[in-house]
């Protein structure tokens, strides 16, 4: 099933255009939505998740007109917001039972069955009697996945799920997500490029409410094959280099020198070395092109 978004626009009361005439098609599999903080990722995802209505535009998922018939979408939707709370003094088991009820599972036996399963999938079965409010960040995020699975969703939207997770939790989380994503559409926003690289078969870069690039991680890096150059420079030279070249990133080395990565179709200068393109580079190139031109 395909998610088709066309000409979506949303302007907030304070004048910020969070989504700007956005159109995109997303198919089955993992879709990574990459963008810096404030790019409009959450706005977009909330809009798809029926929590917010756009000013204009349409969204369809399969034959569901999302904006007109949000109940039909909610039946197949699994949503994990960027941050969420839980009712205090309720155990994971009780809360999941509560969500299962909200999601329309009427029989008690069914609820028990599926709650047990999602707890096992997310490795929370051992702590199912503990209050969710007392969970650590990773556990809570896994709980988020657990509740999302309750209605066997076809469209899964997860908003920056890996932020703040420790490496082990992150890996585990991504594994579960990947497992879920084999048969459904998973839209997954992040500002961590690695998440996308490791997981997604499709991706888009979003900034200022617009899609800057819609591609696949492989294709994206292939596209800039041979256009990434790197050089180790002294701190004092940085400003000059930034002026002269299209610097994508610069980071310190332990010896106080700086590594710069530059985008150029041809070798910018003799002392630049060609580097293997990374997804980061794609990301920065896209953002760079979108930056307001300073006169």
């Amino acid at each position: 099933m395909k998610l088709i978004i066309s000409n979506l626009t949303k302007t907030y009361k304070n004048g910020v255009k969070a989504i700007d005439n956005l159109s995109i098609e997303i198919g089955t599999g993992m879709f990574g939505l990459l963008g810096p903080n404030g790019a409009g990722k959450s706005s977009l995802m909330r809009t798809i998740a029926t929590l917010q209505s756009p000013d204009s535009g349409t969204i369809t998922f399969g034959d569901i007109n999302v904006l007109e018939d949000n109940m039909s979408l909610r039946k197949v939707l699994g949503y994990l917001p960027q941050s969420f709370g839980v009712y205090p003094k309720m155990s994971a088991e009780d809360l999941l039972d509560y969500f299962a009820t909200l999601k329309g599972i009427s029989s008690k036996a069914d609820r028990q069955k599926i709650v047990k399963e999602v707890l096992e999938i997310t490795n929370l079965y051992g702590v199912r009697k503990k209050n969710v409010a007392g969970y650590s960040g990773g556990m809570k995020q896994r709980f988020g996945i657990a509740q999302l699975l309750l209605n066997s969703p076809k469209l899964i939207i997860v908003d920056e799920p890996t932020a703040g997770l420790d490496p082990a939790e992150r890996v585990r989380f991504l594994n579960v997500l990947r497992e879920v994503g084999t048969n459904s559409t998973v839209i997954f926003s992040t500002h961590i490029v690695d998440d996308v690289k490791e997981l997604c078969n499709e991706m888009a870069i979003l900034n200022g409410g617009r899609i800057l690039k819609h591609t696949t991680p492989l294709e994206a890096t292939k596209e800039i094959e041979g256009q990434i150059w790197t050089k180790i420079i002294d701190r004092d030279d940085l400003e000059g280099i930034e002026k002269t070249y299209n610097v994508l990133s610069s980071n310190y080395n332990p010896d106080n020198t700086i590594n710069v990565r530059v985008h150029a179709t041809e070798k910018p200068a003799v002392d630049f070395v060609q580097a293997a393109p990374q997804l980061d580079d794609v990301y920065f190139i896209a953002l760079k092109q979108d930056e307001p031109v300073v006169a």
Partner: protein
Amino acid sequence: MFSTIFKYELKYWIKKPAFYIYMAIFLFLALFIAASSAGIFDFLTISAGSSKVVNSPMGVIELFNGLTTFIFFLFPSIIGLSIYRDYKSEMHTILYSYPFTKANYLFAKFLSSIVIVTLIVIVIGIGMFIGFRLPGTNQDIVGSFSFITYVQAYFVYIIPNILLFGAIVFAVVTFTRNIAAGFITVILLMLIQGIVSNLLSDPDNRFISALLDPYGAEAANYYTRYWTVAEQNEQLLPVKGVIIYNRLLWLGIASLVFGLVYKFFSFSQNAISFSFKKEKSERVTKSNFGGITRINLPKVNYNFSFIQNLKTTWKLSNTDLKYIIKSWPFISIVLVGLIFILISSTALGQMFGTKTLPVTWQMLLVPGSSFSLFINILTFLYAGMLVHRAKIERVNHLIDATTIPNWTLLGSKLVALLKMQLLMLLVIMIGGMLIQVYNGYYNFEIGHYLYELYVLNFVHFVIWALLALFIQTLISNPYIGLFALLVIAIGMPFLSAAGIEQSIFKYNQGPGFSYSDMNGYGTSLSRYFIYKLYWLIGGLVLLIYTALFWVRGLPHSFKERLQIAKARFKGGTIIAMALLSISFLGLGYKIYHENNIVNRYTSSKEREEQQVAWEKKYKKYENAIQPRIVSAKIDLNIFPKKLNFTASGDYLLVNKSEKAIDTILLDHNKYPSTFEFNRENKLVSEDTLYNFDIYKLKQALQPGDTLQLHFTVKNKPNTILRKHSPVQSNGTFMNNMELFPSLGYSGGELTDDKIREKYGLGKNELRPMPSDSTALGNTYIANDADWIDFEATVSTSEDQIAIAPGYLQKEWVKDDRRYFHYKMDHKILNFYSFNSGRYEVKKDKWNDVNLEIYYHKGHEYNLDRMMKGMKGSLAYNSENFSPYQHKQARIIEFPRTGGGFAQSFPNTIPFSEAIGFIADVDDEDDKGVDYPFAITVHEVAHQWWAHQVIGADVLGATMLSESLSEYVSLKVLEHEHGKSKMRTFLKDALDKYLTQRTSERKREKALMYNDGQGYIRYQKGSLIFYALSDYLGEKKLNNALKKYVEKVKFQEAPYTTSIDMVNHIRAITPDSLQYVIKDMFETISLYSNRIVEVKSTELENGKHKVDIEFNVSKYRNDEKGKRFYAEKGGDSITFKTEKMKKPIVSVPLADYIDIGIFTEEEKEGKKKEVELYLKKHKITEINNKISIIVDKRPTEVGVDPYNKLIDIKSDDNRRKL
């Protein structure tokens, strides 16, 4: 650092719109209340005139304090929020690592929020100041502006209260990090205040309750309780004694609370939590290596059907209910509420220190309006909590993205709220039954409990719940929502002050209901249910609006919410809305139609204007000579099942005057009637508004001629919304005045002189002076008859007994109806009653007089006491005054819903079920009066004091009937139960007299010239005649009265007056006591007697010498309560010691005052007071020192120790040694 935080906080508030909204709300409230009390709505509703100045110091402080109470509900979100905000925004994680001290932080936060609150409160003062003076207010009742009054209110009462309640709320919110907790604290404090004042309601506890009342109102009341209207208007509230102690005490407690906050507050990241079990600690690690699992979700069924959603609604409501029940605001209110109920029950229906039996209807009254306010507050609070909880806990995005329909979510919250209300109502039922069990009363009427609580009360709360969900959904902050709801709920009834009187315009208002054992809910329920149905439909309309505006997903701007609501408004919603709106408006119109078009609706303003027009139009007939009724023969049919009556009657009228009469002024009532005279006549004026018709006789009625009037009366058919007859299904009680026509102008004029002036009417003297010999032609009972022959046939349904004055001539049954024919063998006043009910009868005899009590089955408890009362009264009166004129005396019970009184008709005494039949008299308890006995004695005494001696319709007439009946009641009580029981009665009478005279609207006159106020004719009258019998001797006084009775009983016009009776008493009063007559009858005189110092020394012979220093002073009040200390031209006496700031002033004294010395003796294990010495001393000075030698060791000394005299401060007359 302090000033940085302090300034930051102030800036925060000053920039916030809420600050200005609060100010605007309070400004409006203060303006509205002040202006309406000063009569700005006089053009819409009844005039606010009165002899009270509305902005007197007392008035200002009461209003100021009252409005400030509202602001306590804002404390959690202003004072509580100051620190909570840092938690909520998680600012505290950064802030608490900054280098400022705890003191800086706490003081700055606390003081800044206190400043904000005091600023909002200043607005109340400004609002009041302007409100009293808005154009359109009546400046006659507004005094000049007194700045000091406002300052005093602000600094003595309001700021300390703000500090106290602020500190407590600050502490609670700071420690619990929970605004709701702060809120509940405010409610609990109010509850506790209620409990304390309930526990300490006894006058003996007034000092303690003055000290303990956190608001300080009781402390002020301690001094101002007995202030007369003049004193209230003029005097500043004192700042002395217990007021200062009270303020210091509570300021101390406030500082203590704040000190505790300071001590225990720490810059920690987590709220303090209390845990009763100690968790054992362990090292926790999590597994960091997880494999890849295959996801294979089990197949489950998803059901999105309507039925399933209904089931889900129920299931979710249980989750919500669990949350409510587990939350401690709920728990604490339930607990404190239960305690409140149990404590309230200690003074259950108490009269004269005696409780009533804990019957179920009485139990259902215990929670009263305060408990239903708590149910409402919980409803308002949890409506907000349930609506906003998901958002507050940030679960809303998870929930909102599920398939649950909005209506299911909303429905589940509504159902949870209703279940909570049901639980609260269960608390009332359990509380009631606990009290019943505790009192050994096991007649549980579970059905009655369930019906009243779960049907009648529940529907009322449901309607509030619907409004609560609506408001809480519209307003995004649950505490502001709560505040708005409180203002609506408390303010709604007050809309009447602005002329909005009809209930259909005021949410969830309408007629109430009340229950009596005899008549159940009577006929009130059909109207109750129709209004509740109307508002329930109104509430459901709101529920649809709530659903339309329900927030799903991100919080929206209001504009967006409007758009969403519009989008949601389709299909079934439109149909439901249309149907509900049509039914709401339709039913509303039906009610409006019934009340305004089918029946004439008279607003209170119109009523006032009609009174004026009535007087202007018909007063000229006041002295028109009319024939007098000399006999009445009545046929009355009562239909208890259909609640109808039909009646016909024949009056025989005689022209007793010396002039011919050609005009008959017939004053009748609103019932459909026909009138027929036996002489040719013409109806020259028919007034359907005042029901005052004028007939012209073709041939004038010559002196001595007779005229017959035949009339028929029936009620209009009853409708479901209106009952047009006074008939009850069981326990009907009607009298001739409400049913049958009378002759001549009947008075009923406006009494307030200021309002009269507004309408161009002269001052109203109410009645002529007794010295006006031209005004003695009528009794105060009737102006169209003297003594009449009476005969009546009354029919009722077969299962009931019908009673009218007279002797039963015949009783028969015909066509399923029972007939009773009564006839009087003796002339009676034109004043008779009709009763009908399913009665049991208890019979007895006193000499040859038949005694009967017609009572409701199950109300047997006090029949013997009442029988004894009848006998005691018959004996005392006939022995001391004159023989009993009848051969029977009957008491007839009537439902409490008809009133809580008894009334004495000729040998027939209707007696409310509430004032004796279910009294729980404890003969062992000296503080409890056997009031079933006492009231019976009083009513039977009226057979002499009203039915033999009847005063002319002039000032002071009620002294001859009510005061004397009360005197007899006291004397019989004293002979039956002993002197010690009298103190409760006398103290109660004194307190009621002194209290009730403070709300006098017109004037207070001396006893023998009184206007008929209850507090004068009953309370003051009983005190005075009791004291008089003490001064003169009971026998001597009664002999004088006997002479008087012999002279005036059954007399025709001119009728007797108080002057005549007082003269009889004066004649037997020795010269030395003539002053008593003046003090008691002719003037309003009050004592202020006090023991100053007492010392007792044991003498060598084993006796004891008691040195007593005491003060006696006396002053007089004028009509308005202004004090006078001189008889004539500055002859007052004074006393002043160096310590005193102001001298004591008194009217010249030559008074005889009791000095008593007491000791305690043990009798049967109980301590009893024994008189060692009691003697009247002649007192001529204010300050007196005497020495008395007594035989035993004294324990207590008193000046006027039994409070026989009217003493403005009765609790300092005795001193314990």
